[in-house]
């Protein structure tokens, strides 16, 4: 599994992401600058890391979503290549049209930075097959714009096609109420593209890969990717 991490001005989780990928795949990911036009030859997985690309100007992910490298990322996705977007990366995927919908300001208007439980909704994907069906995992979230919104037809399609990857829940796996940190429709924390080769999610699995810093529930995603190719 050869991976490339795209670095935008204002990305800040690329180091954490590289560490998680290295740990699982035993390959050092290549850092690719946003103004480049090509991905390294043989790239299996492209990752858009978290952060505040372009200072969140205009709309979160709006300017990064139109960066030079995104044409190459789009072509990679069209070929069936894997693309992962975390947090700001998820916002960029929505803005670039690789995933439907939009991430709006959190319903309570506050930035949330805390541990968060998720329910794994789909295990038949390159990103999640190492998790158990309906497994409850504990990861962290840190965002001000994570409130997933789309029109009803899009939501129905995502639900009907099993494209909701993760939902926010409490430690018992119960959905709703205060377990939803941002007001997301249907408690959506992450979604797949139609062919399930693109995944965007707001939480940060890359920060939960070491028992020293609170848990290893994020490893499942990277271990899934490592054995996907």
């Amino acid at each position, binding site marked *: 599994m050869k991976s490339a991490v795209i670095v935008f001005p204002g990305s800040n989780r690329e180091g954490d992401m590289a560490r998680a990928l290295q740990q699982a795949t035993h390959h050092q990911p290549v850092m690719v600058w946003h103004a480049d036009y090509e991905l390294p030859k043989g790239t299996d997985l492209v990752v858009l890391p978290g952060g505040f690309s372009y200072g969140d100007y*205009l*709309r979160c992910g*709006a*300017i990064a979503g*139109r960066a030079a490298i995104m044409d190459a990322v789009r072509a990679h996705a069209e070929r069936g290549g894997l693309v992962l977007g975390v947090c700001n990366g998820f916002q960029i995927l929505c*803005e670039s049209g690789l995933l*439907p*919908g*939009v991430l*709006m*300001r*959190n*319903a*309570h*208007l506050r930035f949330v930075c805390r541990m968060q439980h998720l329910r794994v909704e789909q295990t038949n994907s390159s990103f999640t097959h190492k998790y158990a069906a309906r497994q409850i995992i504990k990861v962290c979230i840190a965002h001000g714009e994570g*409130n997933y*919104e*789309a*029109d009803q037809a899009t939501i129905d399609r995502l639900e009907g096609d099993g494209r909701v990857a993760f939902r926010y829940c409490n430690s018992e796996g119960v959905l709703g109420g205060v377990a939803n940190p941002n*007001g997301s429709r249907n408690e959506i924390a992450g979604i797949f593209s139609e062919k399930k080769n693109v995944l965007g999610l707001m939480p940060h699995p890359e920060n939960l890969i070491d028992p020293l810093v609170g848990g290893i529930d994020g490893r499942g995603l990277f271990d899934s990717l490592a054995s996907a190719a």
Partner: protein
Amino acid sequence: MKARVVVTLKNGVLDPQGKAIEGALTSLGVSDIASVRQGKVFDIEISAQDSTQAKQKLITACEKLLANTVIENYSIEI
């Protein structure tokens, strides 16, 4: 040529920032505020042969970048 592009949230899209402003206005004693929706204004200088061509260019700008048409509408004044 000077143009103004206004981007607003579509009807039915929840606007938590507008709601917060609405609440703040009410608590400041500004009466009779029924609702507030927040949007964005872009003042743009553009060179074009005429206003039709300018408008065409600005529509492209809105569709490609200035508005997220999933949740936002735009209007152009030249």
